[in-house]
């Protein structure tokens, strides 16, 4: 078993096109569903990370799926499908003026609603929410490339090589972006480590 498989990451031979991918390219709707469904949550997580509101994240994800569907026939399989899908998301998110990448100071997200049930200790709930807010705020202050690179590395567990493909940059540059992102976060969240 390779090191990457031990780390829970996608092995290098994951670039081999799966049968679902080939069928989806030929227009099989069910194969497209099977191909995309496991990735939806991950794509939505990165969308949330790159936009300021839930509505924008959902809109971005929808746009990404449409682009994937349109471009699947032209996908040349020079990289893994997930790299390609996430690269579409990254490109769309950074296109100027489409999505707000940083929330305005003092604004409160609309999606933040009061809980329906209070079955958890209020203190625990508030602490968890504060922690979430701190992490989100710290991530939000990172530049888009660093934010995406760090998310793909820490949450998705991707290799630097694959992240570089998704961000359309070199592997060294990706390592640099992740390192700078970690340093920035260490400054802001150092007390939690």
């Amino acid at each position, binding site marked *: 078993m390779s090191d990457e498989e031990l780390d829970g990451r996608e092995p290098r031979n994951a670039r081999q096109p799966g049968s679902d991918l080939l069928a989806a390219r030929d227009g099989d709707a069910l194969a497209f569903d099977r191909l995309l469904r496991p990735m939806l949550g991950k794509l939505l997580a990165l969308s949330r990370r790159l936009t300021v509101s839930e509505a924008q994240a959902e809109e971005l994800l929808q746009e990404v799926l449409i682009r994937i569907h349109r471009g699947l026939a032209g996908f040349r399989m020079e990289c893994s499908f997930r790299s390609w899908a996430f690269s579409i998301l990254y490109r769309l998110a950074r296109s100027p003026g489409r999505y707000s990448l940083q929330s305005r100071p003092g604004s409160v997200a609309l999606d933040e609603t009061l809980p329906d049930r209070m079955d958890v200790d209020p203190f625990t709930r508030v602490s968890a929410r504060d922690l979430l807010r701190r992490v989100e705020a710290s991530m939000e202050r990172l530049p888009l490339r660093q934010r995406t690179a760090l998310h793909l590395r820490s949450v998705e567990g991707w290799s630097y090589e694959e992240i570089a493909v998704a961000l359309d940059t070199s592997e060294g540059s990706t390592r640099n972006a992740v390192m700078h992102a*970690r340093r920035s976060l260490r400054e802001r969240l150092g007390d939690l480590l």
Partner: protein
Amino acid sequence: MSPMDQKNQPIPPEQARALDALIASQTDTSMDEAQADLLLGFVQDRSQDSSLDRTKDCAQDRTKDRTQGRTLGRTLDRVAAPMLDSGEAMAQVVDASARVAEQPLRFALRAVLGLGLGLAAAAVLVFFILPDRSSNSESVDSSGVSPDAAGPIVVSTVGSPKEKANDGVERGVSTEPWAPSAILVNGFSRTRRKRVPAEQDLLAAWKGRWIPGLQMRELHQAAREACAAVYPWPLVSKRVSRPQGSSMRVSATLDGLGLTPSPGILVAGPVASARARALIASRWLLRRVANGSLSLKEIHVPARILLASRGAYRLRLVEIFRKSGVRLDRLLIVRGRHLPPESAELLAAVGVESSLKRLAKVDGRIQGRIVRQALLTASADDGPRSTGFLVDFLVLAHRRQPDSDRIRMAPLAELEGLAWQRFLKTLEDQLAHRARYPDRIFLERLRVDLVSRS
């Protein structure tokens, strides 16, 4: 070690792992199955749209050409793709694109000839076939629209003197999906661009549900239109025109309030469904403003409905404004000397709590309008907030004109029932808290007047 050195220190692996674990633990990568079904279903629906297939075909062809590095073939393909339906000549040109590398000059010549033939065929189609199809149809005569008419006048051109003058010219945009005039350069149909969102989708989206395919700008535009539909006079156009047979009915005049543009004009009272729709749209707009997605100026769209409403409907709107989270006191931060009248009236209608120092921006010259707005909300069985604003504003007016009795008596004449009781209670509360002696004297005299009037 200096802070800069500390910052540039490499991150130990265990610290990096801890950081990664922290980020991963605070990230939700799951998605609701229902939401996933909705989303994938939407994408599949879009795939059945013929325009998407057409776009995909063009994309495939472009990719093929890019691989082969045939610039001329790609250009021809892009030009020819939307015109494929026009005639056989164009299809032949596209088919010949594969031979472009072997004999470029010869191919270019044939391509130009083929393109000319294709254009000629399209011209014949437009001049001889399309007029026959549209000659018996009705078209809108833009020159014949009367400014006083309820809607655009539909003029039949059959047999009219204008028929000859318009011969061969199709008015407006064809509504057939793949008619030549309905295809844009990028391969999308005009009809798809003009697609109107379904009513239930709009309502669901305004209520917070995510509807795939609905863009924010569509929602925004529809929300503005929903508000404008119940607004007594048009937001954009000054001309008052209503479609015949619509659900609007003339029901009331807003006389006596001084709210109509010119007194005595009949205004349309919308039916319940339009009013409910406007409420939902207003709430969505205000939440977007509170969220920072829209500018504060957008609140004037629902504000205009609020200022012209009464009774229970007014109370619902006031509640929506208060619960939306929009900080209305930000309206008081203006560069000029005075607040715009509409903003001042909105503050009064909602009953914004603010310091007297900031309220000083409210223009004293329109105090009658401001007091009326606060009274309308108070009369609509509102709580103490509107009466609180009223008392604050009266105190402010008294400071500006200490000798004017009219200031004291103006609101008292219109207070009735519960609103009177609430106002009295607010006065007594304020009396207990006001520290400035002249203000206390004024409030005491106001209270005496109020009690004696009962």
